[in-house]
């Protein structure tokens, strides 16, 4: 271990150190405010530590043969940390109102984020599985955190069981791949076509793909998503939808580029099938939802399908375009999704149950124009309509699809978006409907969360109208990482 190793892994060390400090803090004095403060401090210091890490890497830095840290990983890590900051800010009023012991939530948030950072940088199965489990186990507890309520427990149990199945699929796959290739490092996984172990290898790859598809909730491995999204507290749902999926996306793009697994025709078409099915089925099922959280769950399935287009053209389009698309889409998706669940969360702060039925948002435009505007921006962004960052993201996916001449995928994206417009507009229409007299009053909302949501809403619009800074930044990162 050299000093550079230390500096490059510094953000992770800061994060884990902060977690330990928080644990000690919780052991000594239990105050919600202090826990939040320590968490935010840790997260912000970890963001700052990335600056030090960046100074020590050129195009990429191989850490212990387990992690590879490049500008792209730094981008993802900072995104996860910012996502965690927003989650912590939303969690405070939410848990403060309804729970006695809220401090442990922040410990779990920090460990989950550490896990996500490890997954995103993994170049070896050992670090991949380790990170994934740290992330998943923290998530089980986060989902079940309001332990007095029935729904979160149910959601956590479902997630636990199904996630364990996915993890074991990945483990089995890793075992087979290892048996065939004799290595667990991504970059060395290539196996010659003549090799006798080729079929083991492919079977292993297929199992790994199944596990990853589960984590990304792609059709047909999406069954858990709506239930977990609905059952988990809105803050946690936002976190699951963004950070946990973002980590796996980062891993996927790493994995696909290092192992060239998509150059196997069978795997390629299987993933194409998964992508198309996610786009179509996700959008179709979203049409039937009356619960906002479930609607967002199905919409996230579709969005991951869109994102998969960029991953699939990895061999036919320019690699820098693929990476730009993935980074931009993930960043946009983070902003939009956090804003969406932020709104659900902040209207639920003072309620016993989450405010998740679409009916509850009837006439929001006339009752709370600010929140309605943000939610409209969210809906338009998810639908990919200009003036929002969602359009820029979708534009990139279209560009990647066209450049990769993946016409079938472009068509699926088109059809999926068309169906999508339908239910996003229905959400908007619900908000502009006149409130019927005698309708339940809108729950009271806290100022702090409103500010956070408004900032996210503004980001959606500002980056949608003037995306140049973001695009330039991502391009610089991608180029600096050697593409």
């Amino acid at each position, binding site marked *: 271990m050299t000093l550079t190793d230390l500096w490059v892994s510094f953000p992770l060390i800061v994060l884990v150190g902060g977690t*330990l400090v928080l644990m*000690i803090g*919780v*052991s000594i004095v*239990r*105050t919600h405010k202090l826990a939040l403060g320590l968490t935010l401090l840790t997260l912000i210091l970890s963001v700052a530590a990335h600056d030090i890490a960046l100074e020590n890497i050129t195009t990429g830095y191989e850490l212990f043969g387990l992690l590879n840290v490049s500008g792209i990983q730094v981008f993802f890590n900072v995104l996860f940390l910012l996502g965690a900051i927003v989650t912590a800010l939303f969690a405070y009023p939410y848990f403060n109102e309804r729970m006695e012991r809220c401090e442990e939530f922040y410990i779990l948030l920090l460990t989950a984020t550490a896990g996500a950072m490890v997954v995103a940088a993994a170049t070896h199965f050992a670090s991949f599985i380790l990170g994934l489990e740290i992330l998943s186990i923290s998530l089980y507890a986060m989902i079940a955190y309001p332990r007095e309520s029935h729904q979160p427990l149910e959601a956590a149990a479902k997630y636990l069981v199904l996630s364990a199945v996915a993890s074991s699929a990945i483990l089995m796959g890793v075992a087979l791949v290892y048996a065939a290739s004799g290595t667990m490092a991504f970059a060395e996984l290539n196996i010659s076509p003549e090799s006798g172990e*080729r079929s*083991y290898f492919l079977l292993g790859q297929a199992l790994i793909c199944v596990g990853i598809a589960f984590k990304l909730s792609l059709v047909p491995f999406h069954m858990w998503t709506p239930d977990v999204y609905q059952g988990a507290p809105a803050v946690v749902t936002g976190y699951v939808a963004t950070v946990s999926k973002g980590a796996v996306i980062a891993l996927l793009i790493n994995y696909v580029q290092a192992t060239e697994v998509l150059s196997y025709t069978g795997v390629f078409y299987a993933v194409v099938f998964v992508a198309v099915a996610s786009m179509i089925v996700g959008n179709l099922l979203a049409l039937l939802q009356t619960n906002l959280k479930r609607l967002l769950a199905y919409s996230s399935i579709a969005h991951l399908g869109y994102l998969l287009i960029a991953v699939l053209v990895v061999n036919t389009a320019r690699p820098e375009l693929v990476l730009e698309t993935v980074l931009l889409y993930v960043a946009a998706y983070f902003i939009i999704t956090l804003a969406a669940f932020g709104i659900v969360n902040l209207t639920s702060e003072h309620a016993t149950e989450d405010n998740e039925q679409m009916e509850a948002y009837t006439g929001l435009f006339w009752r709370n124009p600010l929140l309605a505007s943000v939610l409209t921006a969210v809906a338009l962004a998810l639908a990919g309509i200009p003036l929002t960052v969602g359009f820029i993201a979708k534009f990139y996916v279209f560009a990647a699809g066209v450049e990769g001449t993946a016409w079938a995928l472009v068509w699926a994206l088109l059809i999926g978006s068309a169906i999508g417009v339908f239910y996003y507009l229905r959400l908007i229409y619900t908000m502009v409907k006149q409130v019927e007299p005698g309708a339940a009053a809108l729950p009271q909302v806290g100022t702090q969360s409103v500010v956070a949501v408004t900032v996210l809403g503004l980001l959606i619009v500002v980056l949608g109208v003037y995306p140049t800074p973001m695009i330039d930044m991502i391009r610089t990162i991608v180029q600096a990482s050697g593409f």
Partner: protein
Amino acid sequence: MATVIPVDMWPFLIFCVVVFGLLGVMLVASWYIGSKARHGGAQDIPYESGIVPVGEAEDMRLSIEFYLVAIFFVIFDLETIFIVAWAVAFEETAWLGYGAAAVFIGMLLIALLYEYRTGALDWGIKRRVYEPGRYAKVDSA
């Protein structure tokens, strides 16, 4: 590809067949060997082979500490494995290994402190962290 199954796939397929075969044998065998009595008698009573239960199932409460202790055992038992592994390679890993093990044991200590302070190690009466206005009430198990 056609329909020819590659030679090297045979062990895997045989493995699958054996697993499913074993499952099938177990299910079928238990059907034939096992007792046919479905309900009635002592069938629906827990511990049917011995002590007759007293009261309803809801009254059958086991102290949560049993589970906690079991979990702690599993956790700290696992940590021992790592420490033993390091101890065996103490010479080879040198100071770097020592540092890593120290960090690891330090983390365990913090976890232990946390468990102690949250009252997870107490049996019976929970001695939670006293904090005015918040956890003033000391509740019993």
